[in-house]
């Protein structure tokens, strides 16, 4: 009989629901549970948090998630892999150990993976940025630079007996690929298997997005019970083929269609989905129904990795200032248009210096434009937003919207204003050797 392992996805982003992860841990028959919680910009924000507090800089829900799933995972020997370490995997690992002690799970073995932070090596270099310019050109606006590490050091942590592996920036599919490498003893040059494992990891990494989340379109694509959406699990064989499913009785659905949407999600050239471990090839992937809420995944492959790592570079880009106000009833659109014109003129009169400015009417043209013959909306909301060099300048945008109350068109209401710091993300490629993966061990 072919050996297989069962890997579940307990989160697809930092704000994800926690109860589906508990359901998976308790009823999924899992060997591994992976939490992907690190969006592109999250790590730069986490870096800023760490600069203010050396014990901060990891995922806000780390403790809550571990509190919820550790008892079931320990009981069944399910190992956890997560990038919730963000900018501070060591502090995150200490927190995991602390939560485990609080639950009476003495001896829980935790590994922290560091080495993705390449800011010191990269700062001031002429490394070209994909968006134009160089790293040196960012000067002291540079906040963070983190390389996407691959599966090898995570697999090493698992081989060393880690029950929880906490990482910073790693490639999302690598967190799923690592258990396969560890369990099946795959060579790190077995491109077809690494490619197939990457297909599985890619399908799982956004959790509910493959089980019917972000899919429903009533009348066209109906999904049952989104309020109790089940998260996915894959039973992977030693060849890297897999059966993708979810806990029976949970909400959502798993069909070839849900898998197809996720297979292409954030992919550019499907023949070369570039990962630190492999260039995965999705073009021959087959997604066949295999019973209720189950899809068989075969046909993926891969070619040699490039030897380069993608790096996410965070940098200060000034401040967003924003203000909004609503108009409703007969003439809503005309009053919204008048308010837009008034604010535009006011910002000119006060000499606001904004690098970017945008004035939208939500309900008319804020998302995809007005189209050729827009129907008269019953309500519209003016949204004015600009990017400024200083917080003080950004604040004036909200002020000009707020002042519409007594100085603008009739019966506007519901003003909101905000000012927030902008951390922009750029990217570049570096030789893999620039990153120095290192494991650190803790015990609860």
């Amino acid at each position, binding site marked *: 009989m072919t050996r297989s392992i069962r890997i579940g996805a307990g989160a697809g982003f930092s704000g994800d629901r926690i109860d589906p992860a508990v359901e998976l841990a308790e009823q999924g028959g899992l060997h591994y549970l992976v939490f992907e919680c690190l969006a*592109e*910009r999250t790590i730069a924000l986490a870096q800023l948090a760490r600069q203010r507090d050396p014990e901060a800089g990891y995922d806000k829900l780390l403790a809550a998630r571990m509190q919820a799933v550790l008892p079931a995972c320990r009981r069944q020997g399910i190992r956890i892999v997560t990038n919730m370490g963000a900018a501070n995997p060591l502090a995150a690992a200490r927190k995991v150990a602390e939560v485990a002690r609080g639950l009476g799970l003495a001896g829980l073995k935790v590994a922290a993976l560091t080495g993705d932070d390449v800011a010191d090596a990269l700062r001031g270099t002429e490394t070209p940025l*994909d*968006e134009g310019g160089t790293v040196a050109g960012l000067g002291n606006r540079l906040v963070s630079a983190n390389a996407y590490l691959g599966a090898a050091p995570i697999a090493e942590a698992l081989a060393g007996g880690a029950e929880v592996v906490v990482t910073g920036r790693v490639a999302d599919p690598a967190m799923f690929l690592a258990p396969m490498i560890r369990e099946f003893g795959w060579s790190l040059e077995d491109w077809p298997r690494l490619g197939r494992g990457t297909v599985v990891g890619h399908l799982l990494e956004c959790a509910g997005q493959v089980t019917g989340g*972000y*899919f429903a*379109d009533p009348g*066209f*694509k109906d999904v049952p019970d989104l309020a109790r959406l089940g998260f996915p699990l894959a039973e992977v064989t030693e060849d890297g083929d897999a059966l993708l499913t979810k806990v029976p009785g949970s909400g959502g659905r798993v069909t*070839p*269609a849900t898998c*197809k*949407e*996720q*297979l*292409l*999600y*954030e*992919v*550019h*050239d*499907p*023949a070369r989905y570039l990962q630190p471990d492999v260039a995965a090839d*999705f*073009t*021959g*992937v*087959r*997604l066949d129904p295999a019973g209720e809420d189950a899809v068989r995944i075969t*046909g993926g492959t891969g070619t040699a990795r490039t030897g380069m790592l993608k790096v996410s570079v965070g940098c200060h*880009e000034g401040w*967003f200032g924003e203000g909004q106000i609503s108009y409703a009833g007969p003439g809503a659109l005309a009053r919204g248009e008048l308010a837009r014109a008034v604010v535009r003129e006011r910002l000119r009169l006060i000499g606001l210096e904004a690098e*970017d*400015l*945008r004035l*939208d009417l*939500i309900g008319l043209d*804020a*998302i*995809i*434009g007005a189209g050729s013959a827009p129907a008269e909306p019953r309500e519209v909301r003016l*949204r004015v*937003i*600009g*990017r400024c060099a200083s917080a003080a300048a950004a604040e004036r945008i909200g002020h000009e919207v707020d002042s519409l109350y007594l100085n603008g068109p009739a019966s506007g209401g519901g003003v909101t204003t905000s000012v927030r710091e*902008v*951390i*922009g*993300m*750029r*990217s570049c490629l570096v030789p893999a050797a620039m990153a120095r993966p290192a494991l650190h061990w803790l015990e609860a």
Partner: protein
Amino acid sequence: MLLRDLAHARAGDKGDTSSIGVIAYRAEDYARLERLLTPERVRAHFSGIVHGEVRRYALPGIGALNFVMEGALGGGVTRSLALDAHGKCLASAMLEIELPDEA
């Protein structure tokens, strides 16, 4: 008829690039999508939103086309002033494309 009648779609983002997977509901409609839903057609549909190149990758095995649209996200997700900075809604906007009824 609208593209929505034949296909579903999901949008993803990387920097200033939006990628949209368009998937035929029925395998037999794929050839028609491949013929009609050219990169030029898509670029014209998103004029005013997409400022760069539109590339198309075909995945006949799963009946899907993947569109990669550069300069689509107001300079990049993290600094865009757009309400939908990720361009998530562009997938639904794609389905608004009008297709000629087949003879």
